[in-house]
């Protein structure tokens, strides 16, 4: 079966899927488009940090996408096929990557679902709908004015909320941290709800996660960790009140910029390098969102050693396949969210995976010095990625695992390591340090690359 425009129309679950697909026909949204015989695949940059991986079989019109959409085919798959029909030459010929091979192996042969009876769908209509949705200048001016008004209201509301937070923190200290730690969940939930109402969503999420962070520590460590976290909140709130337009502070208090805003921002730092995917940390948050953090490390002489691609999606959408494979290396330009010590990033452009043999960069002798520097620049930061020097993983008398450098530096691990880690010689490791626990992500050992993210 040849892929045609009519076939795509027939496959689309509804007209709105076609309309959504038409909005994705811009090459800039596709860092990667490739083909090999009957297969086409690509990466489509969605709203999150990780691009969706999309593949389609031109012969039987089957498709696969890593997005959580329940529509099938989803808008990404439709867009990929649509672009191929319109300009197949724009798809680079290449070797079929493993993730496409995995998909083709898993799938059963079949044909794409037939067109729903009685429903008229058309690509032209989808294009037209997109064109019609472009607002006129007056409407745009009205929209901007309304946005400014909303921003002003949000500012006033958040300002009051941060003052409210100061009072709340003082109350916790005044009434005793013993009581605070005893009713941690309840107290944090209440202030977080007030912050959500006041539109300080990011700050609310941070406080909502505080109980799980503190309760993961031993009882004797919780007091110091609670003081540190409350202190960071004080600093963050005061810093934002002093500079409410600072993008980093706004991100920490209200919400983050969109990917498009970051890419369009000329002040967003960029780094072109060979990057290695260190690993992924997936956490289900109390607010029902799943946070998917993909950690990247630059192997080249980049000013920014680490980058984290953050994605959020509803837990109800189920487990989402990762867009990257741990250990994968690729050349890419990364755009960082503007910050004093930039870390969160999006991929501006990337090339295919490479079999580069470059070694990891030399780790600093004292990795924790880097953490102290980061805290001086951004004292409200919760955690910092570190590149750790040669060492071992050891267990103490209680069975808790520690990373110990060959020079004697120690840090307790957040999670029990895989058994092999206790018997491996670690040449260097990458992890995230939060002041109390080290979450290892990956290590290079005498047994090769070792993943700690399960």
């Amino acid at each position, binding site marked *: 079966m040849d892929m045609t425009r009519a076939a795509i129309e027939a496959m689309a679950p509804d007209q709105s899927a076609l309309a959504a697909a038409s909005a994705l026909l811009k090459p800039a949204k596709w860092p990667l488009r490739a083909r090999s015989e009957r297969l086409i695949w690509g990466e489509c940059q969605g709203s999150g940090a990780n691009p969706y991986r999309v593949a389609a079989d031109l012969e039987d019109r089957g498709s696969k996408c890593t997005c959580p959409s329940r529509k099938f085919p989803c808008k990404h798959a439709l867009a990929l096929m649509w672009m191929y029909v319109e300009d197949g030459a724009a798809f680079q010929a290449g070797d079929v990557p493993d993730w496409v091979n995995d998909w083709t*192996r898993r799938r059963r042969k079949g044909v794409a679902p037939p067109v729903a009876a009685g429903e008229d769908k058309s690509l032209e209509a989808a294009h037209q709908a997109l064109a019609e949705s472009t607002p006129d200048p007056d409407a745009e001016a009205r929209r901007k004015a309304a946005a400014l008004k909303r921003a002003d209201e949000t500012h006033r509301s958040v300002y009051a909320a941060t003052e409210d937070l*100061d009072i709340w923190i003082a109350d916790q200290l005044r*009434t005793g941290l013993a009581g605070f730690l005893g009713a941690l969940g309840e107290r944090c939930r209440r202030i977080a709800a007030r912050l959500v109402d006041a539109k300080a969503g990011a700050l609310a999420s941070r406080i909502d996660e505080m109980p799980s962070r503190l309760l993961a520590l031993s009882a004797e460590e919780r007091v110091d960790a609670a003081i540190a976290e409350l202190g960071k909140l004080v600093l963050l709130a005061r810093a934002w009140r002093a500079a409410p337009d600072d993008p980093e502070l706004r991100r920490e208090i209200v919400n983050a910029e969109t990917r498009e805003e970051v890419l369009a921002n000329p002040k967003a730092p960029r780094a072109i390098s060979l990057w290695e995917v260190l690993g992924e940390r997936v956490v289900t948050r109390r607010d029902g969102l799943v946070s998917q953090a993909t950690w990247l490390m630059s192997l080249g002489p980049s000013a920014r050693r680490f980058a984290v691609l953050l994605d959020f999606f509803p837990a109800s959408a189920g487990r989402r396949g990762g867009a990257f494979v741990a250990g994968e290396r690729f050349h890419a330009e990364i755009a960082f969210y503007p910050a004093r010590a930039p870390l969160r990033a999006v991929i501006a452009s990337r090339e295919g995976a490479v079999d580069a043999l470059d070694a990891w960069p030399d780790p600093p002798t004292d990795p924790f010095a880097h953490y102290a520097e980061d805290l001086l620049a951004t004292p409200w930061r919760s955690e910092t990625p570190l590149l750790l020097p040669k060492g071992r993983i050891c267990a103490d008398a209680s069975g808790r695992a520690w990373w110990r450098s060959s020079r004697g530096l*120690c840090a307790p691990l957040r999670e029990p390591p895989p058994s092999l880690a206790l*018997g491996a010689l670690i040449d260097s490791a990458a992890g995230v340090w939060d002041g109390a626990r080290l979450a290892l992500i990956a290590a290079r050992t005498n*047994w090769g690359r070792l993943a700690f993210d399960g």
Partner: protein
Amino acid sequence: MDDLESSLAHIRGAWMAGRSAFQHCPPEWRAAVEGVGAECALAALAGHAGAVLFRPAPAAALEPRRLLPELAPPTLPEPLRPHLRRLMAKQKGGASIERHWIDFVAARGYVLHPADWLPASRADWAPDGYAPWFDWVRGEDKPFPPPTFALDTYEQWSWAMRCAALVALRTRDPGAARAIIAAKASSEVAERRAMLIEILDTGLSDQDVECLEAQADDRSERVQVLARLYLARLGRRVDAEALATELADMLEVRKSEAPGGRASLAIDALKTPAQNARRRDLFKLVSLAGLARALRITEEEIVETAPVGAPDGVEAFVQMVAATGSDRACRMLLDQMLDDGAFPLAHARSLGPRLDAEQRRALQPRILMRDAEMFETTLTLMGRVLGEAALPALLASPGYAALTNAVEAARGEDETQRRPADALLETMLSRIAFLADAPAAAALLARLTAAGLPAADPRLDPLRFNAALTTEATP
């Protein structure tokens, strides 16, 4: 630093109790925290100082464990590791499949990478090549054992390494292995004494009787049972005569009336379930030699034809032969079962552990020809002799005919036939992949795709892995 640490401790104490901590503020900080919100400002500075200046420290010096030792066989080639990880992950529910993959890789002369699989501390079933890892996982590894394993170096070897060395010694020099077991068994705990006695299973002979008789009175019941089973195999066990007679009364030996006719054991269903249950229990309590005496025939006469009768009774009888019969009796019974086309070969599975590797290899084509249980019986009887079946033997088997039928049914339009065929197909493809040698696996892939299975069908993954993993060395 001590002053700051002391101040922070006082600040912490004050806030724990709900008092103002301002009076404990270090003098250098006072200017920064004075004014409105002083306690909050102090929290910011105290928290920051604590995070930067102090890190959790272990209560005692940390001692790393010894490095995981490298194993003698080569590690599975790097390109095949993700493939095997996928296969093992897919079968996570069934530990037995994991075992087959471990054994299969070992049969091809490789070991797994420890990031893909490390034995659990009680996974005693894994091949002996993993012994150093067992000891490491259990924390029993010993550094620098002497190069030669002998009675006087026994203690210097770690447990799993000792067992592996004893198994090898038993094959090479049964007497030397027996002498070490006889001398050292009493120094081990009951579970390990039993494991040492199990090593005598290889090459069991009359020379082992003295050692086994000593163990037959061991304080551990498990050791006693094992020693007595081995003595029974050597014809040295005296059963309670009453039990053997009771069992004999529940059986019948039918002699063919033709001249030189052979005896055949009839295990017909008894009148009540209670009687059948009692007979099954008696098969566990009586040895083959004891039963032969009670029936007034020889051991060989009992097994010169395959038994007939009630399936549960036949199964219990074969288990009794497998446990207490001599090597010759076991082999004779298996031969009869293979020759008797009407005998359900699944009953023979308990005889598998009584076969050595060479016997398994020699019998494989015959077993395949008689295996009507989708290769399951073959897989059981082959034990660790995996990945060696040649293409002609596989193609001639009823299992392969069933496989091709399942491929046909799975391609069909009829949903009621397709679904069960799909499930069977996955099972059969997995089993045949454990049995086939690499060229056979490659040929099967070609045949099955020609028969209509898509080349990318994930159910062909086991065969693909087999075909890609060539033999590194003879294990």
